[in-house]
């Protein structure tokens, strides 16, 4: 394998396409130095891979066969949409074939480490959206708009389908222009070109204002701590959150955590530590 010319694979940019790249590389007994979506510039000579869903399925099945976790990592890593995911995932899959299920605990391998980070960020974001996503009622159906970095609709679908089995809802992913449509006991994720919403009804405004009032009331003034809030609830989520409309950060004095030193504390040492 090693004495051949360095080669890059290009594919159509779909998840199936990536799996076909894996398939091809084993068929042709070569290891591409890079895997790129079509049209991206590269200095390497390119080999174009055609997506064949039957091949992709074979690769996917083999991953599930190794372990559910391994397959889960590959799909979550893909959904993370982070730069260079194709290459890391390709190397991860190679390692998975080599070492089997234990690949997910081999953090010393750079590819495993990278994929682990991608998986973690994807799952964290999906979880954050389970927390921070807000629905609005439009004539009995629920609509929510989100702008995630990763593809999170799959996880949200499972979560909200279980939570609201009798509702009809739509979650629109602005970034990737995808919509999750749910009606009792079935759901689908489809590409949506754009979403234009009418004004919601009066009742919706009532509950929004109730929620905003509740949000403002529940915080204890004497403990005002905007930094802590922002750590838990990053600002990029605010624009779609009902209660964050018009929230400004005041210059508040956060109480320094130290009140006084106990007499038992060795003063000499303190002096020494303090520059």
């Amino acid at each position: 394998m090693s004495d051949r010319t360095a080669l890059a694979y290009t594919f159509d940019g779909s998840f199936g396409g990536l799996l076909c790249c894996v398939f091809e590389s084993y068929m042709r007994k070569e290891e591409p130095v890079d895997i790129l979506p079509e049209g991206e510039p590269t200095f390497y000579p390119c080999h174009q891979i055609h997506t064949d869903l039957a091949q992709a399925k074979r690769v996917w099945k083999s991953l599930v066969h190794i372990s559910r976790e391994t397959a889960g990592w590959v799909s979550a890593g893909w959904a993370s949409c982070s730069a260079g995911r194709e290459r890391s995932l390709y190397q991860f899959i190679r390692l998975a074939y080599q070492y089997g299920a234990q690949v997910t605990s081999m953090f010393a391998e750079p590819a495993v480490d990278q994929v682990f980070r991608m998986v973690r960020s994807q799952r964290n974001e999906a979880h954050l959206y389970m927390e921070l996503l807000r629905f609005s009622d439009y004539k009995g159906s629920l609509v929510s708009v989100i702008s995630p970095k990763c593809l999170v609709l799959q996880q949200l679908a499972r979560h909200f389908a279980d939570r609201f089995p009798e509702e009809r809802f739509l979650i629109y992913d602005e970034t990737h222009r995808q919509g999750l449509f749910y009606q009792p006991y079935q759901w689908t994720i489809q590409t949506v070109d754009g979403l234009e919403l009418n004004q919601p009804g009066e009742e919706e405004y009532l509950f929004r204002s109730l929620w905003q009032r509740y949000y403002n009331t529940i915080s204890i003034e004497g403990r005002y701590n905007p930094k802590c809030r922002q750590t838990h609830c990053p600002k990029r989520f605010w624009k779609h959150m009902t209660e964050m409309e018009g929230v400004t950060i005041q210059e508040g004095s956060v109480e320094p955590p130290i009140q006084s030193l106990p007499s038992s504390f060795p003063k000499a040492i303190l002096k020494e530590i303090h520059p």
Partner: protein
Amino acid sequence: MDLLEKLTILADAAKYDAACTSSGVSRSGRKGGIGNCAAAGICHSFSADGRCISLLKVLMTNSCIYDCKYCVNRRSNDCRRAAFSPRELAELTIQFYRRNYIEGLFLSSAVLKNPDYTCERMIEVLALLRGEYRFNGYIHAKAIPGADPLLLYRLGTLCDRMSVNIELPSQKSLHLLCPEKRKEDILKPMGFIRDGIQENTSELVRYHHAPKFAPAGQSTQMIIGATPDTDLQILRLTQAMYQKYRLKRVFYSAYMPVQADSLLPTLDTKPPLLREHRLYQADWLLRFYGFQAEELLDEAHQNFHPLLDPKCNWAVQHIDQFPVEVNSAPYEILLRVPGIGVKSAKRILSARRAGPLGFEGLKKIGVVLKRAQFFLLCNGKLMEGVSVTPTAVLRALVSQQDLERATLPQGAPEQLSLFDRPPQKEDVIQCLTGQL
């Protein structure tokens, strides 16, 4: 009074309750119903004070027959009173829930007329939610001390978690500030809930469809800093609560002065947030790290160290038990090393089965070497360049920021000075570029 006003009054009255978790029970959704529960709980928002908002935390009513000195809702306080009707509150909960604002309801109440009546009103709300609305989400209910055990049992079968607030950490303080409440009144329902949960577990084994009684357990909370109780007293009480009453959680709430009273701290007292933080740290040590209250504090040191967290403090005091060998130390000992948590201790156990661990490996596992380096040996060696002297250890364990704050004079009158802090890099640059 309209709903908006009611919500404002009753949420405002409930906000000093610290507990707002939705954890402890995992339940999937049901066809025809609404809601599910996740074992770890889900936070839905974060208020301006940085605390999570998971549940709709409100009082059923804020008019109370008691006159506890620290409480905003006390009888003698001149404030606006309101009460939800059961239907109103159930509807509000469902509407908030389906918009994904909240994870469920946290229902508490001031005592209206008498404890039984109050409890019945709460049961009405929960029965409406669980029955008519087929609500399957999380419900946390406060048990009202003094209510009939049958009512408490009914409440327990409708909610997920129950709690009774101890409020003040000693009988003396309780007697002083809430003359109408007795310690027994608080402990009785706690014991009842504990027994109920225990009976229920054995019932569930025998009859699969037995109604579940408070499946997420019970919790309590106490107010920190309203009375002169020491950290040691509080921690001992906490430990007794976990052991005797099998509580899931004990919450601490730094006292916010809301009432002027000669028996209470003055109104301009700041809430003892650091003390609350230290107590939570110690609480975790009790629950997950196998520490005992007596190890962390003793008669000579009755309060926590302001600069060192309880675990570091313990390690510094017991430096003779360190360093320990990463590759052979048992789990219990590893847990006591500052910088190693439950997760990393478990990872060390599984990683060292494969081969000897070095400091590089520990870093990847997630051990905080900044703290752990002084207490660990890898293959019989300390980390390169580490010398264990009391000064070096303290220097590493105390954060620079805390130290600066501690050494700056606090509130005392002082003469203005050009150099009230040592000049830093930025100051020098500003000076040099003439931007002063």
